[in-house]
């Protein structure tokens, strides 16, 4: 089984680190993993994205054409990746920075107002962690605890004090999905 995740947004939205946290978590869970950024410091002002592959077997390609999961943190990312999500896959989008609606069927798509929710915690930069929490809740590829442990073990020392806030964001993302489900269930 191979799961592939693309997280895409503006530079500075924390997409690369969110991808790393997922990678660490999967690695700790005994999976084969790869993480690769769309590196491009030579291209200023662009979008930043990364691809995570999680597998039971040795991984061939760190890049994927049709990811199973996409987290789109802004509108350009949604435009770029919506059509590429694998059939039956997941698209999780940051409603706060997206004005248009979904256009694709056959996949599971979610809008989450991540910036607003993150602002509630008090830090807009938490939106990527928040979406990660939501993604985990939606897909079940890892547990929230696994993500949190990975985060705790790999957050650079100088950022340690933001750990509680990160945890909050993960939970908040997950809760938002739970509520959504509850609402739907209604």
């Amino acid at each position: 089984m191979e799961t592939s995740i693309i997280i895409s947004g503006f530079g500075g939205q924390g997409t690369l680190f969110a991808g790393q946290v997922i990678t660490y978590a999967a690695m700790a869970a005994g999976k084969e993993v790869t993480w690769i950024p769309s590196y491009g410091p030579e291209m200023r002002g662009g979008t930043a994205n990364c691809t995570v592959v999680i597998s039971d077997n040795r991984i061939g390609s760190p890049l994927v054409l049709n990811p199973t999961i996409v987290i789109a943190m802004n509108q350009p990312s949604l435009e770029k990746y919506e059509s590429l999500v694998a059939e039956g896959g997941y698209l999780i989008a940051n409603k706060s920075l997206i004005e248009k609606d979904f256009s694709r069927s056959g996949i599971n798509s979610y809008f989450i107002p991540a910036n607003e929710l993150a602002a509630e915690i008090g830090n807009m930069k938490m939106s990527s962690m928040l979406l990660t929490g939501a993604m985990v809740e939606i897909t079940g590829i890892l547990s929230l605890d696994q993500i949190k442990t990975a985060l705790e073990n790999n957050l650079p020392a100088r950022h340690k004090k933001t750990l509680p806030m990160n945890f909050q964001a993960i939970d908040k993302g997950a809760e938002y999905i739970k509520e959504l489900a509850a609402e739907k269930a209604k």
Partner: protein
Amino acid sequence: MATLTTDPIQVYKRPVGLTEVHSHYCPGCTHGISHRLIAEVLDEMGLREKTIGVAPVGCSVFAYKYLNTDYVEAAHGRAPAMATGIKRVRPENIVYTYQGDGDLASIGMAEIMHAAGRGENITVIFINNAIYGMTGGQMAPTTLPGMKTTSSPKGRDVEMAGFPIKMSEILATMQGSSYIVRRSLHDPAYIRKSKKAIRKAFETQVRGMGFSLVELLSTCPTNWKVTPYEALQFVEDSMIPVFPLGDFKVHPEIAKLKV
């Protein structure tokens, strides 16, 4: 005589010399200001349709997308050589290079020195932002002592990496250079002076008087890891003391010129 019209006066509008596209520069990066000044000067001098620009490798690698003239793209540091090739076979054109500090002062040191040495009749716009912007913030020859970069993580150690290299001062020692000045882009008043300098540099070339260069102290908020405004302050507070503004060589005929 006052005019009859009551239409609003357009005090400032984007110059024709700039193309109508969004640039890839980071928000607040003063590369954009220097582009604008070049465009304004070429517009004002009526040179746009005679000019061939030479873009460097650096953040301004896509200068040709923004400046509305013929353009070529040089290998890293070799813009002065490429400009020489063009100017020698097309002396009727106006040829200028646009180069960063890594491009001009590090890998391109030999080419800029010799273009100046030959008194090559070209103009150089030299953007000194004390860092390698495009590759993500490594130390440049112009990085300030003690300044942290991704390749001087403990701050530039002058014992191991030397002191900042002052290109205008060095190039002014070359007999072939006619106009060598340093200006700054950190403040509207200084920007206006920068524009005048760019104008004089092109005037030098138009008069066939040889090598002209305008060094512009510029910002890199992204890699300096500060806001655009803090970046302007850093230029004023930290860069100007190391790279003093001034005229390092001005041909008397150009000195006389009113622009």
